[in-house]
C-alpha cells in the first residue's frame, strides 16, 4: 500500500514531470499512424532542456510585457494543477469554489500570452492572439456548463469533491448528461490546447495558426517556459476529462493511480489518432463548432432538470 506521504510525492511528480510526456505520446502515435518511427517519447524533455540553455532573440519593439507572458501563463498553470485531483487521489489544495479559480487562472494565462503576442507589433501574432482569445471565450460556456453539471450532481464546488468518489455512482443516475459533458469537454480540450481539428501545431503557414503564431517571437528559456506551460495545461484538461469519464475509485491506491495513468495515455493516443485522421476545420467554422459544444453541455444541464 502507498502511504499518504508517498502518494503526495507521486502526485507532485505526476503533476509537474509527466506533462511533456503526453506531448511525446501524441507525437509518437501520429508517427505510428503515418508509418514513421517518429521522435523518442522523451523528446519534449530534450527540447525543454535545450531551450533553457539557448540564447534568445528579442524584438526591439517589445517591452517587459513580452517576457511577462510566458512567466504569468506558466505560473497560473502551475498554481492551477495543484487544485486538480489526479485520478482518485485528491488535489493538493482545495477550497469551496476553487473550480472558478481554475477557470480564471487560465484566463490570466491567456491574457498575458495574448498581450505578449501583441507586444511584438506583428500582424501575424496579433491575428493569433485574436483567435486565441475569441475561441477561448466561446469555449468557456461549454466548459462551464459541464462544471455546473458536476456541481449539481455532487453538490460541491470544490474540484476534489466534484471529481471525487461520488461521481462513480452519479454515472449510473445521470449517464446521459455526463456523457454529453465529456464530449463537450473533449472539444474544449482540443480547442484550448490547440489541437487538430481546431488548430494545427505542426502547420508551416503562419496565416492559419492559432496558438503557435502567438509565440513566434519567443525563443530560448522563455520559449521553454511556454512549451512547458502548454504541456501543463494539456495535463490539467486531460486529468479533468479522464477523471470525469473514468470515475473509478477502487480504494486501492495503486490500482487507482494505474487506472488514471492508463486513462491519460489512452487520451493522448486518442488525440494522436484524431490528429492523424481528421483534417483541420475551416477557421470560420470553429466558432459554430464551439457554440454547438456549448449548447450540448447546456442541454446536459437541462437534462438534469427532469
Amino acid at each position, binding site marked *: 500500500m502507498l502511504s499518504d506521504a508517498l502518494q503526495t510525492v507521486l502526485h507532485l511528480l505526476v503533476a509537474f514531470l509527466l506533462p511533456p510526456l503526453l506531448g511525446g505520446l501524441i507525437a509518437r502515435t501520429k508517427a505510428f499512424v503515418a508509418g514513421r518511427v517518429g521522435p523518442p517519447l522523451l523528446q519534449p524533455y530534450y527540447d525543454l532542456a535545450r531551450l533553457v*540553455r539557448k*540564447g*534568445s532573440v528579442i524584438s526591439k519593439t517589445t517591452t517587459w510585457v513580452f517576457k511577462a507572458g510566458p512567466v504569468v501563463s506558466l505560473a497560473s498553470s502551475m498554481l492551477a494543477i495543484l487544485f486538480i485531483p489526479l485520478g482518485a487521489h485528491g488535489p493538493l489544495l482545495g*477550497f469551496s469554489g*476553487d473550480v472558478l479559480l481554475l477557470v480564471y487562472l487560465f484566463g490570466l494565462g491567456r491574457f498575458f500570452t495574448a498581450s505578449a503576442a*501583441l507586444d511584438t507589433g*506583428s500582424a501575424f501574432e496579433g491575428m493569433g492572439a485574436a483567435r486565441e482569445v475569441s475561441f477561448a471565450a466561446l469555449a468557456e460556456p461549454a466548459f462551464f456548463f459541464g462544471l455546473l453539471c458536476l456541481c449539481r450532481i455532487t453538490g460541491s464546488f470544490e474540484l476534489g469533491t466534484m471529481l471525487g468518489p461520488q461521481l462513480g455512482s452519479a454515472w449510473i443516475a445521470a449517464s446521459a448528461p455526463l456523457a454529453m459533458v465529456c464530449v463537450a469537454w473533449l472539444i474544449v480540450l482540443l480547442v484550448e490546447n490547440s489541437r487538430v481539428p481546431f488548430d494545427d501545431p505542426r502547420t508551416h503557414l503562419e496565416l492559419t495558426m492559432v496558438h503557435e503564431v502567438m509565440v513566434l517571437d519567443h525563443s530560448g528559456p522563455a520559449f521553454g517556459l511556454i512549451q512547458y506551460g502548454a504541456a501543463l495545461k494539456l495535463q490539467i484538461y486531460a486529468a479533468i476529462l479522464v477523471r470525469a469519464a473514468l470515475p473509478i475509485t477502487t480504494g486501492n491506491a495503486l490500482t487507482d493511480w494505474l487506472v488514471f495513468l492508463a486513462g491519460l495515455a489512452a487520451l493522448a493516443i486518442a488525440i494522436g489518432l484524431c490528429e492523424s485522421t481528421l483534417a483541420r476545420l475551416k477557421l470560420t467554422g470553429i*466558432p459554430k463548432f464551439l457554440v454547438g459544444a456549448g449548447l450540448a453541455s447546456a442541454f446536459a444541464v437541462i437534462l438534469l432538470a427532469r
Partner: protein
Amino acid sequence: MTQVLLVLAILLALGSGVPALLGARDSNRRQRLGAGLVVAAGVFALCAVAVSALESAGILDATVTAGWLMRACGLDGMQRWFLVPIAILGPCAAVYGTGYWPQASHPENGRKVSLFLGMLVAGLMTIVCARNTWPFLFGWEAMALAAFFLVATEDDNPDVRQASWHYLVATHFTTLSLFAMFSLMRAATGSYDLGPLPASISVSLSNGLFLLALFGFGIKAGVFGLHVWLPGAHANSPSHVSAILSGFVLKIGIFGLIRVLLWLPHPQLWWGGVILALGTTSALYGVVAALGQHDLKRLLAYHSVENIGIILMGLGVALLGRSLGRTDLLILGLAGALLHVWNHCFFKSLLFLAAGSVVHAAHTRTIDQLGGLLRAMPWTGAAFLVGAVAICGLPPLNGFVSELLVYLGLLRLTTHQTGLFWLAGALAAPVLALVGALAVACFVKVFGAVFLGEPRTHAARHAVEAPRSMRVPMAVLGGLCLAIGLASPLLAPLLDGAVSMWTPHAHVRLLAPLGSVSLAALALVLIIALLAFWLAGRLRKTGSTRAVTWDCGYALPTARMQYTAASFADILTSLFDWVLKPVTHLTAPAGRFPRRATFSSHVTDIALDHAIYPLAERGFELLSRLRGLQGGRTQAYIVYIFAALIALLWW
C-alpha cells in the same frame, strides 16, 4: 459625532470649488486648494465611518448631535460600506484633476469643473448618509446636476452637447420616478423618514414600488435598456469625471436599489428573477458592445454596463435567497454585489484615470490611433494593466474575489433542490463565465492596441508620461485593487456589517473562502516572482540579442502593418452583429487608377439607436400634429373658451 463629521465632510466637498470660483480663471493654486479640501472631506468621511463603526460596536459613545440631525443623516452598516469608496475616489479624482485639467490650460471651464466636482462628491456623500427623503433627494439632484455640468464641460463640441443632453433626460426620469417612489413610501409610512415600510401595505403597492425603484435606480445604474445615457456621458466628460461617474455615480443607483429593496415588505420571487435576468443581460450586452467600440473611453463605459450587470446578478441571487428563505444565497449574493461595488469603483476609475493620461498625452481617444505607449508611459501603462486584469476578474486582483462570491451564490442556487429556480443560476453562471472570457478578449485588445507594439500615429509617438499629480491617484487605486485581491479577509468585518442590514449576524467568511482565495493569490504572486527571477537569471546567463520582430521574413515592418483593435475584435463582433448592428461606410476603389478608398464601421447602441430614438421621433411627430391648435386664429381660440365652458356646465 458621526453626524458632525459627515456634515463637515459634505460641506467641505461642497465648498471645495468656491476658492476657484472666486479666484482668477486660470489660477492653478486655487484649484489645488480645492483639491485639498476634497481630500479633507474624504478624510472626514472616513473618520465618520470609523467613529460610527466604533459607536455601533459599543466601543465608543460620542453622541453629541441634535435630534433633527440624527434623523436627517447617519451611518448604518450599508451606508458605511458605500461611503468608503466615494471618500477615497473623490479625493483621488480631485487630485488627478489638478494635473489633468489644470485651470491654467482650461481657463474657459476649469473653474466650472472644480466647482461641480466638489458638488458631485458632496451630493454623493449626502445620498449615502441620508436617512430622510429630503436630504436624499437634495443630494440626489446635486449629484445629478453637478454630473450634468461636468459632462457638459466642453459644451462647444456637438458630441459633448448630445451626450450631456442624453444624460440630463435620463437623470431627470430617474428623479421623477424617485419622486413617485418616495411620495408613495411617505403615503405608506406617514413620514418622510426613510426606513422599512409597514407590512400592512398591499402586495401590489410593494410591487409597484419595486418597479419604480428598478426603473429609477436602474437608469442611474445603467442597466441594459436604460443605459442609453451612459456611454456618451462617460466618453465625453473629462476623465477624472468619468472616473467618478463610472466609479460611483452608477453605484449610487445600486445603493438606492439595495436600500429600497430592503425596506419593501412581501418580497416576491419574481423580483429576484427579474434582477438576475437584467443583470445577466446587462453583463453580456455590456461586454459585447464594448468589444465593438473604437473609442477608448466609450469602451470602458460599456464595461461599466457589464459590471453593473455582475453586481445585479449578485443582488438577484440575494433576492432569490431572501424569497426562498436561503440565508446562504442571500449572504453570498449580497456580499458579492457589495464587494463588486467597491472593486468596480476602484478598478474602473483606475482605468478611466489611466485612459485620461493617455488622452492627455496623445490627444485622442481612438484606440486605433494609439499604440506603443507603454515605453513612453510606463506608470500609466502599468496602472492600466492592473485595472485591466482586475476588471477581467482575474486573480490575484480584487475583481476575482467579488466575482467569486457572485459565482458561489449562483452555484449554490444551482444546487437548490426544489422547484426549477436553480435553472436560473445554471443559466446565469456560464453566461458570467462567457462574459469574463469576452472581457479578457476585450482588454487584451485595448491594452495591446494602446500600450503595446509600435505607435500608430505621430501623437502617440511623442506621448510623455503623466505628471506626478496624476500618477499618485492611479497608484492609490491600483494599490487598493491589489490589496483587496491579496487580503480580502481584512474587509470581512465591514462587509459583514453591510450584509447584516439584510440578515442579522451575517458572517461572510463562514460561506466564502476569502482566506483561501487570498492565500491562492499570494501563492500566485510568489510563483510569478520566482519564475520571473529564474527567467531573468537565465536570460542574463544565456544572453539575448535584439532584432526586429519576426514577420514571416518581411524585413521592414511598419506600425501600419500591426493588427488593429478593430480587426482583433472582428471574430467576436461579427458573431454578435445581430445585436451590435454595425453601420459601415465604404468608398470602394474604382477605376483604373483608384483614388482614395476608405472603409469605416461603427457599432450602434441597440437601445438608443434602435428603440429610444425611433420612439421619441414618433412621439414628437405626434405632438407636432397637435400644434395646429394654436394656429393664430382668434376665432378658434374663442371656440376653445366656449367649448371649455360648455364642458364644465354639462358635467
